[in-house]
């Protein structure tokens, strides 16, 4: 029985709304999201709590931090880390986030759900954009739970809380804004390594730790170049958002994060469009 058919092309907005709707529905209905929110809260509390505990001889370690807010952001931009404390701040969210994005996107492929998506959504840019936005949202939420965990840890460890509130807020906002750039990088990496789940997780971890920027920073330092140059990278801007942040720090974060998000989205869309789904 033949029937009269109408074909209305859904607008970009409608397509994106549908895709975002699915991804948010999935995010809120998967335990993975809540597990990572909890991890983001527990880790800073553990780091500051453990470092303030006495050892078996009753000696207390030299405190890792001078101030509770250093659990959230470094006192000043540190492109090359010297101690674990330099590293253990809100930037760790970008590592947890990388693993979460890998699992989130990996499930799309391992379950075969991606076939349903691409059967009805011819436009690959919808997929890239939606995943970037949803994963950025998840990472921004992890920044919030990290903040809560960090404060709790600071209280337990008895660190002082004196801070320039404006700079602190700008640093936190800067790091939350950077979630967009990081989420786009991870989405891109997972699209590239979609057939190899283990490789996608490893690559996300590798990039999330900022190993490349640490190498670049070492070169910049040895050549005595201005370190501000490193802020064009995701890790550089993320590190730059510290306890001496000002409005220009936040602006740099916005520009860098959006620019990389656009770059990775265009690149990811191109690769997806030119290659087989699986």
């Amino acid at each position, binding site marked *: *029985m*033949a*029937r009269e*058919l109408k*074909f*209305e*092309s*859904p607008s970009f907005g*409608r*397509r994106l*709304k*549908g*895709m975002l*709707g*699915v991804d948010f*529905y*999935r995010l809120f*209905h*998967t335990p993975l999201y809540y597990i990572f929110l909890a991890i983001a809260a527990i880790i800073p509390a553990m780091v500051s709590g453990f470092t303030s505990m006495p050892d078996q001889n009753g000696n207390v370690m030299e405190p890792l931090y001078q101030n509770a807010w250093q659990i959230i952001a470094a006192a000043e931009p540190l492109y090359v880390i010297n101690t674990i404390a330099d590293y253990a701040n809100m930037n760790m969210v970008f590592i947890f986030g990388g693993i979460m994005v890998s699992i989130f996107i990996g*499930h799309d492929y391992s*379950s*075969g*759900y*991606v*076939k*349903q*998506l*691409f*059967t*009805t*959504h*011819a*436009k690959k840019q919808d997929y890239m954009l939606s995943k970037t936005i949803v994963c950025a949202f998840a990472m921004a939420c992890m920044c919030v739970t990290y903040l809560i965990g960090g404060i709790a840890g600071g209280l337990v460890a008895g660190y002082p809380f004196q801070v320039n509130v404006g700079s602190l807020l700008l640093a936190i906002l800067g790091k939350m804004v950077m979630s967009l750039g990081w989420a786009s990088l991870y989405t891109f990496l997972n699209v590239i390594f979609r057939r190899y789940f283990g490789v996608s997780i490893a690559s996300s971890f590798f990039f999330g730790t900022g190993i490349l920027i640490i190498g670049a920073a070492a070169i910049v330092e040895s050549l005595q170049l201005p370190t501000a140059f490193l802020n064009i990278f995701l890790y550089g801007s993320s590190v730059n958002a510290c306890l001496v942040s000002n409005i220009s720090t936040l602006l740099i974060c916005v520009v860098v994060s959006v620019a990389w998000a656009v770059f990775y989205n265009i690149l990811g869309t191109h690769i997806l*469009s*030119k*290659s*087989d*789904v*699986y």
Partner: protein
Amino acid sequence: MNAIEIRNLSKSFRNLYAVDGLNMTVPMGAIYGFIGENGSGKSTTEKLICGHLVPDNGEIKLFGRDYTDPGVRVRVGALIENAGCFPGSSIYQNLMMQAINLGLENPDEEIHRVLEIVRMSEHAQLKFKKCSLGMRQRIGIAMALLGDPALLILDEPINGLDTDGMRIMREILVDITKKYGCTVLISSHILGELEKIATHYGIIRQGKMIMELSAEEMDSRAQVFVSLKTKDMVGAMKKLAEKYADVRMEDEYVRVYDVDDTASIVDFLMKNGHVVSEIQKNKIGLEEYYIELMSKKEGA
């Protein structure tokens, strides 16, 4: 206007052509049985139509439009290899995700409608990982049915199902085409089942379409024959060969091809001293037709 029109489609993997200059025409409203051996290019063709694979060459049109047009793609539903559901989510949640993805106005209502079609209403809250194979295939069909699709692409949906599962699936597919006017492209190895529902056939071999025909054409091409048993099978066969052009011994029966008059055969054998113990009229089925066609191509 045809539901699917493919011209000169090619797809290779590491220089080996899985689909090689394929042409295909699926009329609107048809249940198109897509037949071919393993590795003949059926699934690859279906994946190309669904946009899962990027073709090397060729043109795919769905309802007269380019297959990448989002307007036409939202009207396509597919079940390729598996249902594409998240194992840890319930059937309802999986369907809800696809309903949101399609931007349906009343997703809850729509989910219950498709669950009813696939006879799964009472299992909506069951986790996908706890479903049997038959249930999973039906959920896959339900996923594909969301959003009023005009075209359904089903890759081996009856593989691995038991007899009852096959019957349910057959009924569902017939329902879909009758009630909703959907065009269905279905590939299957179980030709006996396909024969019961298909209105058109396409036979693919080594990535090339070797024949497309309607069920009526298939019917008219199918040879009729009479099969019989007697005490002296060899003697009866020799005697029948004197009168009829095509007589063969197959499957422990004497078969007289291109004849459907059982009475005249019985009469002829009786006159020649052979008592017929069993006789029936037959028609070559899709499976035999396909095997014969393939053996001819093999010989060619």
